[in-house]
């Protein structure tokens, strides 16, 4: 166990050394993050210039949701995303046959492919996400409680604890879904399926409740964007529902096991890159 913690440190240090060699990427990443923020907040401001609430969510609650969205994506880009991209992305290990060497490493394979690569500059995104969260959450706390029918009334500390729990569930879900999509590359190499995640997660910029019927159900249980982003944001705005949170925890546990099984059965299909 200790060995794996030490390995995490080694992976982190290696990535740090290789990425700090390209300092320009830092300012480029910063610039891109600022632009995206401008686009997101500008879009939100335009909508709220015309209305005062969307589906019961006010401006501050939606800004908090945006913060959660950016935080989850930032964390995914920091560690799990780069590793899985190097596995199944374009010219990743599965395309080039480099996966042979991954299998030879004397570490548990799933651990290795998940944590070997860190994309350090994502800390910029994470920092901005935390700032947005802090600003919007303090605005929510100042404006008092949101009235929602099935909301339990939580203290501010309670909300933050609930948020942390919901965020952990969210991260496990993100990891499991990504691992499933990445493992699909063992069977199908036509296109990196992980990109589909990047498309679908965008629906999380807004609460899952705005989507109609079938779509909402799919976004809650099938590709659980709702649990990944809406539920942690609800915890912050004090409208969380304990049943939903428990459901999310069960789903996360189930998907985590399923993804590990799927990954292992994928490895069995692996036949290296040559014919």
């Amino acid at each position, binding site marked *: 166990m200790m060995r794996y913690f030490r390995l995490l440190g080694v992976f982190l240090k290696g990535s740090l050394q290789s990425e700090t060699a390209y300092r320009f990427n830092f300012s480029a990443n910063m610039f891109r993050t600022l632009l995206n923020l401008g686009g997101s907040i500008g879009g939100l401001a*335009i*909508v709220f210039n015309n209305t005062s609430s969307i589906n019961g969510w006010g401006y501050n609650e939606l800004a908090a949701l945006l913060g959660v969205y950016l935080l989850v994506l930032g964390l995914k880009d920091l560690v799990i995303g780069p590793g899985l991209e190097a596995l199944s992305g374009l010219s990743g290990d599965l395309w080039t046959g480099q996966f042979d060497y991954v299998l030879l490493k004397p570490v548990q394979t799933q651990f290795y492919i998940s944590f070997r690569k860190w994309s350090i500059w994502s800390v910029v995104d994470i920092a901005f996400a935390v700032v947005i969260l802090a600003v919007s959450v303090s605005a929510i706390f100042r404006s008092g409680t949101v009235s929602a029918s099935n909301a339990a009334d939580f203290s501010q500390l309670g909300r933050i604890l609930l948020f942390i729990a919901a965020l952990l569930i969210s991260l496990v879900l993100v990891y499991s879904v990504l691992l499933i999509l990445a493992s699909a590359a063992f069977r199908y190499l036509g296109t990196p399926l992980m990109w589909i995640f990047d498309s679908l997660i965008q629906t999380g910029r807004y609460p899952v409740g705005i989507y109609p019927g079938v779509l909402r159900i799919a976004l809650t249980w099938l590709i659980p964007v709702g649990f990944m982003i809406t539920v942690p944001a609800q915890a912050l705005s004090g409208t969380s529902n304990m049943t939903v949170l428990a459901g999310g925890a069960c789903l996360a546990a189930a998907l985590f096991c399923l993804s590990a099984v799927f990954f292992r059965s994928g490895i069995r299909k692996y036949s290296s890159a040559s014919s």
Partner: protein
Amino acid sequence: MKADFIPLNLRGGMALVRKSLFSFTASRGFFWTLAVSWMMAPLILMFVWVAAAGNGTIGGLGKSRFISYYLCLMLVNQLTYPTSHWTIGDNIRLGTLSTWLMRPLPIIYEAVASDMALKVVCMPLVLILTAVLAVFLGFGTGIDPGLMPVFIPVLLLACVLRFILAYTLSLSAMWTQKTDSLLSVNDILVFLLAGQAAPTGLLPGILRTASEYLPFRYMLGFPVEIVTGMLTNRQILTGLLVQTIWLFGIFVVQRSVYRRGIKRFTAAGG
């Protein structure tokens, strides 16, 4: 370098389109993933506005108007969105541009060809997805077939305008190594001002005025507003005028950027 003045070489151009088409069709799974990701933003914003409008209206637009507006925007966005500009910078930096220069064709043909081919490859998927959405969401009001004679030329102009601006920006790679930032600014402005974040009529004060005078609305939102019957004849005429002026302006700038840039181009290694 006189490449810019070679008369229209349509046969060569078509050969390039065919070449790109074959290579793109072979990896259509890849391009379809991209096409789906480009459809996401309009789709999400459609649901946002529908939810915001509820059973009422916003700025005179109700639920069904938002649905028809954004479904049309999805199609028009796909038809006008160029992609070649993202790779031209790489070709300039890596020196592969020299292959293009060897052809008896202006280099713009390569960009045009790859964009035309991409649209052909993605269109079937986009049409099917949009049709499915239209059936499920109830595409009721909006399209007036009588407006087609205006819509189609405006759409073509929008395609050319959006392409030529992106292409001109990408040529700046002749001077600087990194063009991605510039191209991202372009994308964000299109998102905010061209009718994607909101139909331009719903933009607040200054942004709305800006959207009327800047070129971005005329790359995307303007044709959609025409075909969904949101504009008066007078507004259409004014818009067409602004669109044409921008098109000529950017075209002139492009020629001079190209002529200066190509003199600086020394391929890789240099």
